[in-house]
């Protein structure tokens, strides 16, 4: 009963923003892992520079928290959810190309200690995001 219950309780939820960011929220830790979507990396092209927020920064959903840049353009990254920046992906400093190779996994941007998980409800699920990209 214990382990099984635990498994059920540990829900990860993946949600998307209109700005082509994804956040994977783990309700057992209260942490949301932020990334850009595969669709975003493919439209941006070769990522050559990533600017990430400072640790411990308190962010409000919609705040600009950094940027992803290709040679041709800079794209701002907005906080998909409110909270505190708990960890950033330091690997991106010398390997920005991870965002192209593995945008939603190895190329994650930062981890946010989420202050209000109900904000996730206003984000898109996978099907809605897919429709958003095709619209």
């Amino acid at each position, binding site marked *: 009963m214990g382990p099984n219950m635990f498994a059920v309780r540990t829900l990860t939820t993946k949600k998307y923003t209109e700005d082509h960011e994804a956040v994977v929220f783990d309700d057992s830790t209260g942490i949301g892992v932020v990334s850009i979507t595969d669709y975003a990396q493919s439209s941006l092209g070769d990522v050559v520079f990533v600017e990430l927020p400072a640790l411990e920064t308190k962010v409000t959903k919609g705040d600009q928290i950094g*940027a992803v840049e290709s040679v041709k*353009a*800079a794209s701002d990254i907005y906080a998909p959810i409110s909270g505190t920046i708990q960890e950033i992906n330091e690997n991106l400093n010398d390997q920005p190309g991870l965002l192209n190779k593995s945008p939603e996994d190895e190329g994650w941007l930062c981890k946010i200690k989420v202050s209000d998980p109900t904000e996730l409800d206003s984000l898109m699920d996978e099907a809605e995001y897919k429709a958003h990209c095709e619209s």
Partner: protein
Amino acid sequence: MTATVLRSRLPSLVAGGRRYAFQRTVPKFTRFMTTPSADLSLSRRGHTQLKKTGLYDFHIEGGAKMVPFAGYSMPLSYGSVGAVASHHHVRNTVGLFDVGHMVQTKFRGPTSAAFLEWLTPSSLTSLSPYSSTLSVLLNEKGGIIDDTIITKHSEDAFYVVTNAGRRDRDLAWFAQKIDEWNNDSTKSEKGKVEMEILEGWGLLALQGPEAAKYLQTLTSFDLRSLTFGRSAFVPLEGFNLHVARGGYTGEDGFEISVPPTETVEVAKLLSHAPVQLTGLGARDSLRLEAGMCLYGQDLDEDTSPVEAGLSWVIGKERRETGGFIGADLVLKHLKDGPPRRRVGFIVEGAPARQGAKIFKPSSNDLIGTVTSGIPSPTLEKNIAMGYVENGWHKKGTEVEIEVRNKLRKAVVTPMPFVKPKYWRG
């Protein structure tokens, strides 16, 4: 990622010009950018007006991603080749660009040289036949209407290439000024000037260290004799084409003008391995590394050639005699120094792009604005160009540039950022 920011930039794309410096063209990157949704809305909006060069189908067959640029649908990139790989291919090997959106014009008549010396500060009388020069069309206030490459064929025949994004402005200006010239019996005493727009003609730029080797396989003409800034009619596999040595990349290369009916065939001839088709994406990063201006971004009608760091296009004797439209201000800027100057920067931290503000170090004193900036694929440093107040333009001067509300250290750096490799014989 923000569609918002990108979208807000897009309108400038539509209005944006482009141009070339020792050559032509180019894009603006941020302008092309795109979240697909933004891109789509733009294309949809501009769909009816977007023009095509003679190579549109050729680009599609080559897997091009087409984007609106200066009123044309132009290739941004081809297939899965990324902007950085494409850039390196031109720096290391050879690439082919369609610049057929640019406006090619011929001026003929006994007073053509004098007429063009009225419209520009260049010394065209002393230019030798089949030589080209970068020049600028100036308005009455000495501001740059467009930058252009002028090639002299003879005293009474000139070939002029101007920017697609400035087509309407330039052609109206030419028409108005020709009219004034031909109706002024003093000016046109020795004969009138006529203009012919080479409508629908192709213009191909073959650029890179292997451009000459490749082109040489197609002609018996000894290309070693065709040095940078020179042009010639060259027999190419049965075609006889105007070939100018130069370009908008800083590499050795050629710009080849092709009659409408021959453009596709010539493009095919010029696109076998190792040549790679190259889009606007790489074109912008190549020209910026070469320190060349993009009209609409780095140059505009409120900027004099002296401010723009283009004093070298002003003919030596013309600094004394003047006699060109806009001379009052230009000569004043030459004599007293301009209020601001275009310079290059290396920027620490994040790339500074168009519109970024430049400050004196550790102060709130705004001294200028960035007009173009990218992370340089060749140097792997952030390069930029922009205008700063006179006095802050000297090599090695430290400034601060604001990117995303943070000040980044930057140092005034001579351009070109990447050493040109022109063929000078």
